[in-house]
């Protein structure tokens, strides 16, 4: 019988290995972690979310997702390490313990399971000719089939299913997207949402769709600054930060804009480290350093969320 103690957090894993780890993880830490299936993917794979909770009902909550872009393996690996960090530090780290006493944390480790399975079975390195027959031409390329997690058609999304920013035939028509939207909407008490991507070394907040600053711009700017400073202290990695539109590009319909407009003030999009040498193929030796520094930024955002209820 396996346990999570034999799991290598410094290695990349297949979907089956990750889902098996999830089952073991939930069993071993049933006092604090549970598994929720929030839907099924286009190819009918389970879409799973880990819930970290110390009990109580209607706790405010924090959402973290990794792996929307399935070729960004460092994000899934970081998410797994982070989940393990939460259970191992609960009760030891005062800040995390306080957060979990008052709030629940939800982590979706593999947001695009079809795409992730595809990158393991067919094409790890990008090449947009890996399409298979499906409802939409190119829908199952794998690595970027959910694009920039486009929720609604707009400037930043595309009607071409072969585009990285394909928004689907109608708003939220992609089951992976709809599962999240439905879950977060039904829950109704999320206070922070952090969507983790790689690789550009950025921490960004709304808006993407417009250069106009959001009403909480000053607070989000200061929080992003604190988070990247905490991240920098771990391994000296510098991040850009700011609104999506001023830091990266103007694009509408993306996750954090939707979250912010849905009332989740602390909405951030992460782009994990870029060594300038590997791109998506970041060596496994860098998983733990990446996760360690990311954790400090996540912890900063979560702590701020705890201390600034709204």
């Amino acid at each position, binding site marked *: 019988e396996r346990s999570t103690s034999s799991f*290598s957090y410094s*290695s*990349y*894993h*297949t979907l089956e290995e990750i889902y098996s780890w999830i089952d073991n993880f939930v069993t071993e830490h049933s006092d604090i972690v549970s598994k929720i299936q929030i839907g099924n993917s286009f190819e009918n794979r389970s879409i799973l979310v880990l819930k970290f909770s110390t009990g109580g009902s209607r706790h405010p909550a924090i959402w973290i997702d990794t792996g929307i872009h399935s070729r960004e393996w460092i994000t899934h690996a970081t998410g797994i390490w982070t989940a393990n960090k939460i259970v191992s530090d609960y009760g030891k780290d005062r800040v995390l313990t306080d957060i979990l006493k008052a709030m629940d944390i939800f982590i979706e480790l593999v947001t695009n399971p079809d795409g992730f399975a595809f990158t393991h079975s*067919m*094409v*790890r*390195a*990008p*090449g*947009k*000719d*890996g399409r298979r027959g499906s409802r939409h031409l190119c829908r199952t390329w794998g690595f970027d089939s959910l694009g920039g997690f486009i929720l609604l058609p707009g400037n930043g999304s595309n009607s071409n299913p072969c585009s*990285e920013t394909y928004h689907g035939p109608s708003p939220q028509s992609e089951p992976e997207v709809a599962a999240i939207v439905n879950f977060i909407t039904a829950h109704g008490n999320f206070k922070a949402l952090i969507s983790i991507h790689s*690789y*550009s070394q950025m921490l960004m907040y709304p808006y993407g769709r417009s250069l106009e600053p959001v009403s909480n711009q000053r607070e989000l700017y200061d929080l992003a600054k604190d988070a990247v400073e905490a991240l920098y202290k771990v391994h000296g990695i510098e991040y850009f930060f700011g609104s999506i539109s001023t830091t*990266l*590009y103007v694009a509408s319909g993306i996750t954090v804009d939707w979250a912010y407009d849905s009332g989740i003030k602390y909405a951030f999009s992460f782009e994990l480290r870029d060594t*300038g*040498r*590997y*791109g*998506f*193929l970041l*060596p*496994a030796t860098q998983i733990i350093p990446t996760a360690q520094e990311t954790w400090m930024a996540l912890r900063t955002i979560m702590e701020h969320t705890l201390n600034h209820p709204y």
Partner: protein
Amino acid sequence: QMNFTGDQVLRVLAKDEKQLSLLRDLEGLKPQKVDFWRGPARPSLPVDMRVPFSELKYIKAYLESHGLAYSIMIKDIQVLLDEEREAMAKSRRL
């Protein structure tokens, strides 16, 4: 599985909007020719693109002819993929 032997990832630094638009022209090519890992967003940000071995000469010539500075971020993708696969197999054996 595909073989990526000889495919490279080039990191391009556009000086201005004009150079960015030259890179955007490449985005219109079929992905078999150029696959943008990081698309042209703004001049201060690097652009990374995977170029299949068969297209390397053409793409490099295009960049050079337009004065676009680039470096080779990944010299041979297949080498990295092989290392990645070996690392995963080793982890599984352990």
